[in-house]
């Protein structure tokens, strides 16, 4: 069976870029993201959208109920400064060229530390729709 084809080339994300993270309203408290917003899926990374190919509004529109989601912005250079080894890679999907992933340890204290640090550099730029 042939490998699945990616419709878009994989690019290097520069430090000057930013990424958008969608955070469901259950992961927002008092108008700010909780650490639950920085949870990777399974053993994978944290899915985000690169601002080169997505606006905050487009990132939000990818949620099942867009208005139930806030959009968090993080600077790529800030993410890379958290710790040596943490990185963010472009992983385009056929339906989303902006899709990228922040690599996190799969578990343990190292993951806890990085989640705390991500929360510190995060800014909500689109709050939950009222």
């Amino acid at each position, binding site marked *: 069976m042939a490998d699945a084809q990616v419709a878009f080339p994989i690019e290097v994300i520069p430090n000057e870029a930013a990424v958008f993270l*969608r955070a*469901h309203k*259950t*992961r927002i*408290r*008092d108008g*700010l*993201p*909780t*650490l*639950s917003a920085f*949870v*990777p*899926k*399974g053993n994978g990374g944290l899915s985000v959208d690169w601002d080169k190919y997505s606006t905050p509004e487009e990132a939000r529109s990818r*949620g*099942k*109920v867009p208005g*139930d*989601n806030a959009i968090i912005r993080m600077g790529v250079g800030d993410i890379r400064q958290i710790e040596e080894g943490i990185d963010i890679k472009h992983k385009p999907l056929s339906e989303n060229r902006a899709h990228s992933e922040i690599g996190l340890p799969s*578990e*343990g*204290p190292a*993951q*806890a*530390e990085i*989640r*705390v640090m991500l929360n510190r550099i995060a800014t909500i730029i689109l709050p939950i729709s009222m």
Partner: protein
Amino acid sequence: MSSSGAACAYEYESDFEVPDGGTKCDQPADNRVDDSLRTEITRAEKLVGTLDADEDSLAYSRETLNLAIVFLRVQSSQFRKMYSFCPPVPHIGPGPNGSVDLHWKQNQWELLINIPSDNSQQASFYGDDYGTQRIKGTLHPRKINYGIISWLTHK
């Protein structure tokens, strides 16, 4: 964001200065009930077994939340015996893979303890004072951890 403040009333004075986020309690040590902790637990219970509306994943199970509550009560009880006031109350929320996050974010320090859904695993923690002091490691969620208790007195 700040963690919930405790709601215990003051009964007596102590020479020990109440730390960031903590408050003195007014009930006997054996039956003190921290209203803020109870409120936070009630809030967390609403997420038991619920689907994350955006990701189709379960937040956490009753069993995992119970383990997190046991952990909090064990540390809180010992804390109050040692210092005669209530420790600060964390936010309780869903963590990765069905785990439970206990998150204290205070003006002077921050601490995350992650209680795993697999109760054979150790809990993970990370904390710092936004400066040079850090704690990081694993712990047994059913045992008193004096390092964590000490951290909760941080000023």
